[in-house]
């Protein structure tokens, strides 16, 4: 078994009296697409928030490539190669799509002091930004103001911003949230194309997508891992069935 790239041990997080992450063990192996599923309130987004460092755990550790990053601030984790997308679109509404992605590229292209060139003429930023937009299928809207994009296009932009820095690990929080049928299909194809090129942690509700794409699946319920393994194992797991009893599968 290959050494894990990103892992948590005993991750615990409380919000007041509410235990959101309960001694959570989780690990991601290089090159895999690891899906995280579970009912609402299971703590999936909180896990992502802790992995990226936007939330500090109350107990437990997080390791990345053998190094303890539990106390590392968010921006440093990003520079190490951990990138995330948000469940609720979090872009820069006043910038165009291209400017959004160029800004994302800028963070990983050295410092931002001392340059006087307009960013629109910085090849080092524009070229990867255009490539990322092409990859997610948003090229045609590159000069559109982000605030004016449709919801599905927002989700594409989200992904482009996470991709452009060529991260080692992509943490995707419900990339298809709120998308309709056709948009979802293109997103699924896109995720499929990303699959071998990036290590991906995918939080998702749509079971069809999860079982189609995932190499491994972790099931979270009330902040605890109740099952983790190959899709076939998860499908057969009694605990998982129990957790989902009465739950209707939502698609999209």
């Amino acid at each position: 078994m290959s050494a894990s790239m990103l892992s948590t041990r005993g991750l615990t997080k409380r919000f007041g009296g509410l235990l959101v992450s309960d001694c959570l063990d989780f690990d991601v192996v290089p090159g895999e697409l690891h899906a995280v599923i579970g009912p609402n309130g299971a703590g999936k987004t909180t896990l992502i928030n802790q992995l990226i460092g936007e939330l500090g755990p109350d107990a437990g550790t997080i390791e990345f490539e053998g190094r303890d990053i539990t106390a590392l601030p968010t921006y440093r984790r990003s520079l190490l190669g951990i990138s995330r997308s948000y469940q609720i679109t979090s872009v820069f509404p006043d910038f165009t799509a291209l400017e959004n992605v160029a800004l994302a590229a800028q963070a990983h292209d050295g410092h931002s002091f001392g340059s006087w060139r307009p960013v629109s003429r910085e090849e080092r930023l524009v070229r990867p930004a255009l490539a990322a937009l092409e990859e997610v299928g948003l090229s045609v809207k590159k000069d559109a103001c982000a605030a004016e994009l449709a919801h599905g296009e927002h989700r594409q932009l989200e992904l482009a911003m996470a991709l452009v820095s060529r991260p080692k690990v992509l943490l995707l929080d419900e990339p298809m949230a709120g998308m309709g049928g056709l948009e979802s299909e293109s997103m699924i194809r896109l995720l499929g194309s990303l699959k071998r090129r990036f290590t991906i942690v995918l939080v998702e509700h749509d079971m069809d997508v999860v079982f189609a794409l995932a190499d491994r699946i972790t099931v979270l319920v009330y902040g605890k891992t109740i099952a983790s393994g190959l899709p076939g194992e998860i499908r057969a797991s009694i605990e998982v069935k129990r957790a989902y009893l009465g739950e209707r599968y939502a698609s999209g």
Partner: protein
Amino acid sequence: MLPETLSARSPRVIAVVVFMLLLAAVPLISAAIGQSYYVTLVTRILVFGLAAASLNLILGYGGLVSFGHALYLGIGAYTVGILSFHGISNGWIHLVVTLALSALVSFLTGLVCMRTSGVAFIMITLAFAQMFYFLGVSLKQYGGDDGLTITQRSDFGPLFSIQGNTGLYYLALGLVAATLYLSWRFVHARFGRLLLGTKSNIRRMRALGFPVLRYQVAAYVISGCICGVAGLLLANFTNFASPAYMYWTVSGDLIVMVILGGIATIMGPLVGAAVYVILETVLSAYTQHWMVILGPVIVLIALLANRGLYGLLLAREPSDSGSGAP
């Protein structure tokens, strides 16, 4: 919409250039019609326009509401005042010391203030500025509450002289023009985009990998230094240094100018300063109690001035072909 990005031939650039040329002509026109008053009025506008432009960098583009920028006016003014008091009237020394002090104070206060955000930041900048006001008042040997008269203006040697009002006017105009041009370049380059990003979504900026704090402090330092230079001009303009320059209402005035003119626009602060100074001048000629009118006017400005006067002008333009235009 984003700050302006345009080619050198677009109508807006031409309008700005014409405007600046008109400003350059003011002393000539003023002399021609024999009314030196206009030179002093517009000098005042330029000085506060420079200060407002410096505030716009961190407030308009960076989203950092500093209610204590008048502090740097005081630093510049007192540098000139105290050095002159001790017989040092070399303008270059005044300039270097102003920049050094402004940088130091803004760096230290910036480090402390940036640990907070939102409301706390506003209040802390206010408190720090007032602290320096009290410091100025307690400097009895330099006039204290009464202020310090400056007998001779900063001497910039053989290069140029600001002993006369026209000389000072052109120095102020030159500094304003340089600041606005550099701001324009800055805003479209990496640092400027970074600041704008932090203004709209700081959480995402960190997640993208930006060490936001150091850039915010750097922007604050740059802003403080420019405002310090405005203070140097102010002291030369009034031949006076006073703690009143640092009083918190002056910081409030600067914020009004920035908002009135248009946040996150290049020309906005100058436009806002012009309107505000002229408004003050007109109102105070009308009644001794002009503040009772100015107060509600400011409330109205806060209520209505979404994009500011200059911002409204920008919005009425047909849009460019997107910000990717060269």
